[in-house]
């Protein structure tokens, strides 16, 4: 099957919801209320006539250097100038010594795979993707990075194996992020 023909979990769920909604719409037209019997038990349900869709707006002002450098092909994080603590994810403040004086340092791009999984049943907002593998990789500096691992079969991956970080553009959302690539 070609990629175009293959149905994603999102296609299947959207199709189910369309069928369900048209069923409820028909019920509402015939009886005047958005009520319907539960498919399994027959108990009466009300189909919510209000809805919510939301996307959050998150401040990245305090760590904007991370994204600037990512666009330049560099993978950086914050290190406290006062006490030397290294943070990933990067953060603006150092709770360890109470200072807010960070320098941006480049991280090494190779590390060791600590653990991994493959996500088979996906959240709705990831349901348009094929199954993906997520891994946590430890860098020599002592911080770990969670990201997708570029591989198809989780049973072929090994804990302790070497991984290299690549900066990539994520399809289909078209934003720059990073992922792990197994080192042969």
């Amino acid at each position, binding site marked *: 099957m070609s990629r175009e023909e293959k149905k994603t*979990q999102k296609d299947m*769920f959207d199709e189910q919801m369309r069928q369900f909604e048209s069923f409820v719409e028909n019920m509402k037209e015939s009886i005047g209320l958005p009520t319907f019997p539960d498919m399994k038990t027959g108990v009466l349900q009300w189909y919510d006539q209000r809805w919510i869709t939301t996307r959050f707006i998150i401040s990245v002002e305090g760590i904007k250097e991370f994204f600037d450098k990512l666009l330049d092909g560099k993978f950086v994080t914050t290190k406290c100038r006062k006490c030397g603590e290294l943070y990933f*994810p990067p953060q603006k403040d150092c709770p360890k010594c109470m200072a807010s004086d960070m320098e941006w340092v480049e991280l090494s791009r190779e590390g060791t795979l600590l*653990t991994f*999984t493959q996500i*088979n*049943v996906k959240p*709705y907002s990831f349901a348009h993707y094929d199954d993906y593998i997520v891994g946590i990789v430890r860098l020599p500096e002592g911080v770990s990075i969670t990201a997708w691992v570029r591989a198809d079969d989780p049973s072929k991956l090994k804990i302790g194996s070497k991984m290299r970080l690549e900066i990539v553009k994520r399809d289909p959302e078209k934003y720059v992020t990073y992922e792990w690539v197994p080192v042969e």
Partner: protein
Amino acid sequence: MGRNVAVVGVGHSRYGVRSDVNIGELAWESIKKALEDANLEQKDIEYFIVSSVGGWSSEYLPAVVIGEYSGLTPKGTARVEAACASGSAAVKLAYEMVSSGTVDIAMAVGLEKMNESPTPVVVEFIGRAGNYFWEFHNFGLTFPGYYALYATAYMDKYGATEEDFCKVAVKNHYYGARNPKAHFQREVTIEKCMTSRYIAWPLKLYDCSPITDGSSAVILASEEVAKKLTDSPVWIEAVGEASDTANLSKRDDFTYLRAARLAAEKAYKKAGLMDGYNMYKYFDVAEVHDCFTIAEVLAYEDLRFAEPGKGIELVRNEETYIGGKIPVNLSGGLKAKGHPIGATGVGMVAELTNQLLQRVEKDRQAPIKNGRALAHNVGGTGHYAYVTILSLSKPNGGV
């Protein structure tokens, strides 16, 4: 040291897909039973704490909705959130209110109505339970996915197999089949579990707890009040609690839950139990947080029922059935009784109270010898942890 606190009444709804009730009705099932069990009226409850995570359900302020429906208005209330350990957080806070003398009688009510939303939306909500931006937004982890990270690491380090984990599911379904309150009241076989589809490799459908609706309630009272209400109080001997990082990438080891270990240490210390890796000997029965089969194995080790890496042997040797070293999850656990997020921890205390008072169905009743039981309730992926110790003997030197 505060005042002694007893559980004087418990209520527990049937868990499952509860399309037959709304949020108020579902909570009332437990609240009514707890009040009757304690022989109290709503006016006697001085404060009620509601544990509910929500998002997937319609009522944004469940505490007041429950209060109005159940006749608890105008008593003071608040909703608490500690993810899947919200229920234990509610019990802990109610316990502290009574122990400190702030009130004499408090109620903890746990409630979740997850099936008001379609499954992919629920998966979305629970997947966000960690660090949203750095772990969910970019990499789409799910709740089974987070625990799968632990399963992969545990299997690699200690040689556990997918079949070993399925044995946990088989045990918990065995007891779920004997609990009329359970979401799944049927046994499963190893084969059925082993051939179920992957949800988050290496975890399969039967390694996972279901999406459940349910409620539970417990009423706590001071010693003075408890003496008047009941001849059989169950005492809260100790509560231990801890938390861990939101980002899993900030953890070094994926073969144990640090928060659960710390919570257990704290609870054991408070109760004066300080042995090695055979802590099970103090208890007759335990309810542990088996949101996934791997989580039950981690619980055995974090509670020091077994040495690190040896928890899986308790499973292989069937030591956590009745008749073994320590019966665990005789309710069916989260796996088969179900996991209505905010209700789970309160439901554990209700179940263990009934176990200690020998009030549960015969074929899932633990023999009560020590008079002590333990609830282990984890929120998120080891983000929050609570260990609650219940006892038939009065703490602080009493009898």
